[in-house]
């Protein structure tokens, strides 16, 4: 098992390397000179040199790359041009909100998605199954930023139950925090819920057709035990993979949902960077999110091995 975990971790290194290279390369896509797009015509050569250094664009490309990895190894993601703050520090400050949002919506998506998927699979072909599948297609087709606005309109404007946006720190007011996170988490969780429900349903249908399910039934196991212990447990294996992939979608989605609900998380930071051409923030935010995503998928891979001994045996 340790060997399996070590192999998975090692396997992530090339991916992290590629991800960091791409994040580094993103700035080369700026048409013309990224420095002149930040400064007006009256900038002195000294100012130009300063900004160039701040963007990590001084010296030959090879020097730049070496300096970039030197900084990365020290945990330095560069200096934000407009915030006057290291990018890594800015991200860490805002990370808890984004993580809370993604974890909450993941919890919503997994719990209801798995339940809906199991019900749909058990009642295959029924009205209920059709309704769940129809609803999941709706969930997948909703633009989440718009769905967030719809929820704001319903629950905040029309019903007046929840605030229209803004953030209340958990430590100050737990109830206020819950209120401020409820709609964003639900908005973000809906499309993943749809995905998880579909995946659980198809995986469950496949498992329920297996011989060992028939055997368990023939031996007189109670229907609930067959469904949950023999069926769901095996059906969940591919669902775990989907959950890992969903995490990437959630990180992306959080960017937009934070904008809609005015949550001061990492997504807002990145959008601020995007709108004000703060390239170090864009690069750093991109790299940081991708690194989280890669590590989550390594964790999922490991979990996969824990759940399914066959995977472990194949990898070793």
């Amino acid at each position, binding site marked *: 098992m340790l060997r399996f975990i070590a192999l998975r971790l090692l396997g992530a290194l090339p991916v992290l390397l590629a991800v960091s290279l791409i994040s580094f390369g993103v700035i080369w896509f700026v048409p013309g000179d990224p420095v002149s797009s930040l400064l007006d015509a009256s900038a002195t050569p000294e100012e130009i040199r300063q900004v160039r250094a701040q963007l990590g664009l001084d010296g030959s490309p090879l020097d730049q790359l070496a300096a970039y990895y030197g900084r990365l190894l020290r945990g330095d993601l560069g200096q934000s041009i407009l915030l006057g703050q290291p990018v890594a520090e800015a991200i860490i400050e805002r990370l808890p909100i984004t993580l809370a949002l993604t974890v909450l919506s993941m919890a919503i998506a997994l719990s209801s998605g798995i339940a809906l998927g199991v019900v749909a699979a058990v009642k295959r072909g029924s009205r209920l199954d059709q309704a769940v599948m129809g609803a999941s297609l709706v969930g997948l*087709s909703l633009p989440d930023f*718009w769905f967030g606005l719809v929820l704001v309109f319903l629950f905040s404007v029309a019903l007046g139950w929840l605030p229209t946006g803004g953030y209340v720190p958990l430590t100050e007011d737990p109830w206020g925090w819950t209120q401020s996170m409820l709609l964003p988490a639900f908005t973000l969780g809906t499309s993943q819920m749809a995905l998880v429900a579909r995946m659980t349903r198809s995986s469950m249908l496949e498992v329920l057709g297996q011989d060992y399910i028939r055997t368990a039934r023939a031996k007189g196991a109670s229907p609930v035990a067959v469904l949950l212990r023999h069926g769901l447990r095996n059906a969940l294996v591919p669902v775990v993979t989907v959950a890992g992939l969903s995490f990437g979608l959630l990180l992306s989605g959080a960017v937009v949902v934070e904008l809609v609900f005015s949550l001061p998380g990492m997504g807002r930071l*990145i959008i601020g960077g995007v709108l004000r051409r703060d390239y170090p923030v864009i690069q750093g935010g*991109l790299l940081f999110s991708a690194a989280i995503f890669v590590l989550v998928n390594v964790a999922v891979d490991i979990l996969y091995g824990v759940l399914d001994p066959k995977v472990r045996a194949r990898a070793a």
Partner: protein
Amino acid sequence: MACSIRRFAPVPLDAINPRGATTSPGAALARWRAALAPFLANRSVVLGGSVFLLVLLVALLAPAIAPHAPDANNFRYRLGEPSAEYIFGTDHYGRDILSRVLYGMRLSLLVGAGVALLSGATGLLIGAVSGYFDRLDGPLMRGMDAMMAFPGTLLAIALAAVLGPTALNAAIALSVIYTPRTARVVRASVLTVRRHDYVEAARALGAGHLRILVRHILRNAMAPFLVQITFVFAVAILGEAVLSFIGIGPQPPTPSLGNIISDGRAYIEDAPWVSLLPGLVIFVIVFALNMLGDGLRDVTDPRMTVEPR
């Protein structure tokens, strides 16, 4: 020689390209009808497809059916409620939302189609090459993996941000992030098809790589690709909406569905129609495309399970 090879191809070949065995116009028509029959019998295909065609038609006719010019403002009727004259209401400049939505639909569909074509072409090329040439498979797929290691929309946001805020750049950024999955789909079906005996037969008959790959493998690997492209069209419309909602898509005053919603955000309390109605239109378009894609997949491969996109 070409004719003798063609005999080895399985039936679906004709479903994709009926030129193959045309004898008379009547026979060609019958072939088309036979090939299309299973699609027309599928409820999702028919319903999703018709709604989508309707959307296309409406978007094409936008200049003719829009009641107002998209940028004409009526300052006496700002944030006006939906009425007979302004069916979707007006925005904070007193512009007709319906007319802006109709023009925004054109842009959305154009970007969606552009992304489907561009990422489809690159995905097809990369997937075909890596499925067929074993030596190139490793490097190409590792490259695709690296791109899929990013949270997709976030990478598109970063790319669109550095490229600059235009519809074309939005389409390029979105194409980049949707290419890897398409490449994987194509590669998987190429790997399956190339094992068939008729590919071996073509090789034995002296056909070159290009001929084998294009005429024998790709032609028979088209179905999953076309299904995938339908889904890409759908997510690209969502993606474009996200980019222009953030403010890095096509810039105002050019109407796009995303930027109309973004404009209306500040007025959600007093004039909810500004944001809510354009979003409903996005939803309808994407829903129709997803339904069409689901149906196409069910018809072409009933065993295929639902995969995240």
